[in-house]
């Protein structure tokens, strides 16, 4: 028996959890028609198989019709959910993993123009900034109706064989009752703390009566809203104590902060560049004050921190949720003493930022997450060993090298720089994005383990590739910044990369023109503004930095607003001309009929990259497939079988930005889905 604190079983009432690591509730937005179908089940089962003790399904499964999903949540108010949840639960149970679900009513944290177009409800008229709905202030029949909905939904989960559930109370209806900021009701559900908690206890009592004692109940709640006039840390302790004393709940799942704004949400669930485990001590203080089973998650990406949380008695169960998006086999690797093999969560938050934009949660650098039905988390061995030559050691090339090597191929990589990383290395130069380099470091370690041959400082030409006598050639050469977007003065501008790499020193009065909308522009602006320079970011889009997305934007805004950066939307940079020792920039508008001028000393353009594809086109006529990809096979998991040139001795493929400017996830997905079948 291991003496690792993380691997000790935990007895929660009648339920034995096999270790101390859990996946906390989160909605990857995989439901179909509001139901957790095959894709959803495969995602949880993959993690259950690999040893996690408890998976808490569903972020915010909806208990009522007037809580329409904001990011494709499970509809727990429908009876048909029972069958789907039972299937998921049974399969996870077969692998020894406990299953619970989070139930909620979103209250004002949703929109009225969805599903049944019912008014959004809350205990006050206060609007939530993030979802913009002006709520209906709840009446008595709203309250009793929703209490009943919670109890009915809980009964469905009990019927589906789940081990228990938790109620969501941070930013949703339940804590909208708790917080003086969002509860304007008069008694019995408004006023004193006990009145404000009445809604919660009515629900807990109802569920307990309906579901019995052998069903685990908990609350995931904010113990401190961190807002003037909101729930304070003292209130949080009092609420925790009352939850315990009620005898109705079996565990506390602690959160700190508020989620009604992007910035608040990001402090609750920090992204890369922000502190790790910022609320762990807070959760520990609640455990200490209550001496009651306490769970918690918030940027605990690494096993040593998780182990500390358990060993130091701060938590009973530690949530490693985004860590499990990056590596579903995390627990298995801990058990097998292979912690170094864990694919690290880099806090890029691609998963969460995507769901808030209505997309599915994907891991920036694990393309198999959420695609368990078609993409492997463990790479199967190839039927025959081949020589695979890869050009470029950016994210695409490194993923291709890792997957090819794990398949058992003999892999050679050429890289022009003296280190792997490509654009990841460039972005990781900035402190805020430093964690990104783990995307490369992990792959480098995996490649080293499997004996990949690297040739650094080698700008490979066709002859270098041919000299390796390859069976398969993968061109992952990335691209170079493209800045020629002006009618005049293209020679007078520099690229965001020039600024980030240090090739060009920042000016004093700088216009950053960004129509790519990705991290590079904000990184360059931040670097320039930090020198004390005046910076204006101009974009033709309706909003700036659309590809950075809401939570990732928060740390940039905190920096750029302090540095007095100006953001100008809906203006397009048309031309730049010299004016003495200055530059005169002319702005136009897609709406037409207007121009503006700016006198600056530097113009930075961020317009993505153009492929570096010379090598690809040199090799193309020599290849057997002439570079062609069978998209049908690629997307359905078949083998590539294009033969166009009988003289060709190797097959040629091109992935990542060497094809067209996209992002890290696209580069890695390109590589995984191609190479897994090579």
């Amino acid at each position: 028996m291991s003496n690792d604190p993380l691997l000790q079983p935990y007895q929660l009432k009648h339920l034995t959890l096999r270790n101390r690591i859990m996946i906390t509730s989160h909605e990857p937005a995989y439901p179909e028609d509001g139901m957790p179908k095959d894709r959803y089940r495969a995602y949880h089962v993959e993690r259950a198989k690999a040893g996690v003790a408890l998976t808490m399904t569903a972020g915010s499964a909806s208990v009522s019709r007037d809580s329409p999903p904001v990011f494709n949540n499970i509809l727990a108010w429908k009876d048909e959910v029972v069958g789907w949840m039972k299937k998921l639960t049974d399969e996870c149970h077969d692998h020894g993993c406990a299953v619970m679900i989070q139930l909620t009513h979103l209250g004002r944290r949703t929109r009225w123009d969805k599903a049944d177009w019912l008014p959004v409800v809350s205990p006050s008229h206060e609007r939530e900034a993030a979802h913009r709905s002006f709520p209906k202030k709840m009446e008595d029949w709203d309250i009793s109706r929703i209490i009943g909905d919670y109890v009915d939904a809980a009964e469905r989960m009990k019927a589906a064989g789940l081990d228990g559930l938790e109620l969501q109370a941070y930013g949703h209806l339940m804590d909208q009752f708790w917080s003086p900021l969002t509860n304007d009701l008069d008694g019995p559900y408004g006023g004193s703390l006990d009145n404000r908690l009445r809604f919660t206890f009515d629900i807990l009592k109802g569920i307990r009566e309906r579901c019995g004692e052998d069903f685990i109940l908990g609350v995931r709640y904010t113990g401190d809203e961190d807002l003037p006039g909101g729930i304070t840390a003292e209130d949080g302790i009092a609420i925790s104590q009352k939850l315990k004393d009620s005898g109705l709940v079996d565990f506390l799942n602690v959160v700190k902060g508020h989620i009604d704004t992007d910035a608040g949400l990001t402090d609750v669930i920090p992204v890369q560049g922000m502190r790790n485990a910022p609320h762990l001590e807070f959760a520990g203080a609640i455990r200490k004050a209550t001496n009651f089973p306490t769970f918690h998650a918030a940027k605990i990406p690494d096993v040593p921190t998780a182990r500390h949380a358990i060993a130091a008695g701060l938590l009973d169960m530690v949530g490693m949720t985004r860590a499990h998006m990056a590596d579903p086999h995390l627990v298995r690797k801990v058990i097998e003493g292979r912690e170094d093999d864990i694919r690290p969560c880099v806090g890029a938050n691609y998963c969460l930022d995507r769901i808030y934009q209505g997309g599915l949660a994907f891991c920036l650098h694990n393309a198999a997450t959420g695609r368990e039905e078609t993409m492997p988390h463990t790479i199967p061995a190839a039927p025959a060993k081949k020589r695979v030559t890869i050009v470029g050691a950016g994210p695409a090339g490194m993923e291709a090298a890792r997957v090819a090597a794990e398949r058992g191929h003999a892999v050679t990589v050429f890289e022009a720089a003296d280190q792997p990383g490509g654009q990841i290395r460039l972005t990781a130069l900035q402190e805020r994005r430093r964690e990104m380099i783990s995307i490369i470091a992990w792959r480098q370690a995996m490649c080293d383990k499997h004996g990949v041959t690297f040739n650094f400082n080698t700008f490979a030409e066709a002859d270098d590739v041919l000299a390796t006598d390859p069976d398969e050639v993968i061109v992952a050469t990335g691209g170079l910044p493209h800045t020629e977007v002006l009618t005049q003065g293209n020679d007078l501008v520099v690229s965001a990369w020039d600024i980030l790499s240090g090739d060009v020193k920042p000016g004093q009065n700088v216009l950053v023109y960004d129509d790519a909308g990705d991290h590079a522009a904000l990184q360059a602006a931040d670097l320039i503004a930090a020198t004390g320079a005046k910076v204006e970011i101009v974009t033709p889009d309706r909003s700036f930095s659309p590809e950075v997305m809401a939570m990732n934007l928060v740390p940039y805004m905190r920096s750029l607003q302090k540095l007095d950066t100006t953001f100008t939307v809906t203006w397009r940079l048309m031309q730049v001309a010299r004016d003495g020792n200055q530059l005169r920039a002319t702005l136009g508008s897609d709406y037409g009929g207007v121009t503006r001028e700016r006198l600056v000393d530097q113009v930075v353009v961020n317009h993505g990259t153009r492929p570096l594809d010379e090598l690809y086109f040199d090799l193309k006529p020599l290849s057997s497939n002439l570079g062609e990809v069978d998209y049908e096979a690629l997307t359905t998991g078949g083998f590539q079988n294009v033969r166009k040139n009988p003289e060709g001795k190797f097959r040629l493929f091109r992935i990542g930005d060497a094809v067209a400017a996209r992002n890290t996830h696209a580069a890695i997905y390109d590589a995984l889905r191609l190479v897994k079948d090579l």
Partner: protein
Amino acid sequence: MKILTPIKRVIDYNVKARVRSNGSGVDLANVKMSMNPFDEIAVEEAIRLKEAGKAEEVIAVSIGVKQAQETLRTALAMGADRAILVVAADDVHQDIEPLAVAKILAAVARAEGAGLVIAGKQAIDNDMNATGQMLAALLGWGQATFASKLELEGAKAKVTREVDGGLQTIEVGLPAVVTADLRLNEPRYASLPNIMKAKKKPLEEKTPADYGVEVAPRLEVVSVREPEGRKAGIKVGSVDELVGKLKEAGVI
């Protein structure tokens, strides 16, 4: 003024070094090799001097195996103007000793008419810390080793050195040999556009014979061993037991 920056291709500092099975040295076959980090600092300093208008040309020189041209490409991508590779060995495991390296560098410095040599203070593979000093002696130039700051003023170089308990500032007349310490600067990132430009920069290949230098080793490596592995520990049950064990081991 021309600045010469000698660079050495060494095992990458991130690589876990392993001794060859025959005990002759560290295994370098199929291992990531990089520019000696102190040399990278030296190259950076030379490029900064050029950017500041204090030098006209930066020449990177490496002496070793043919593969060292990859390392020279890094220096060119950082901003060196041209490179010279003196191919002095076929086998990656054959190390050229500091005296032979210094003799070749002295010949290169004379042939190029260099006004300043900036070298790394030592290479992280053998830690000899000898080449810069030998080179200064062979050239009859002044030397300023372990530089943490370098300022050129007319025909003189003002060099700040980190010494025990503080900083020492010395002045040497030019031409001189300066060796770079860790805190002299932070080397720049070689960007892809600059890597591409570096492809077109001249890289000249020479041999020790071109400079009339004999590189046969004068030293004999008797044996190379890995440090002994850590021995398994024991768990003690109490502070008293710990103290007892420590006394037993004779450490307190």
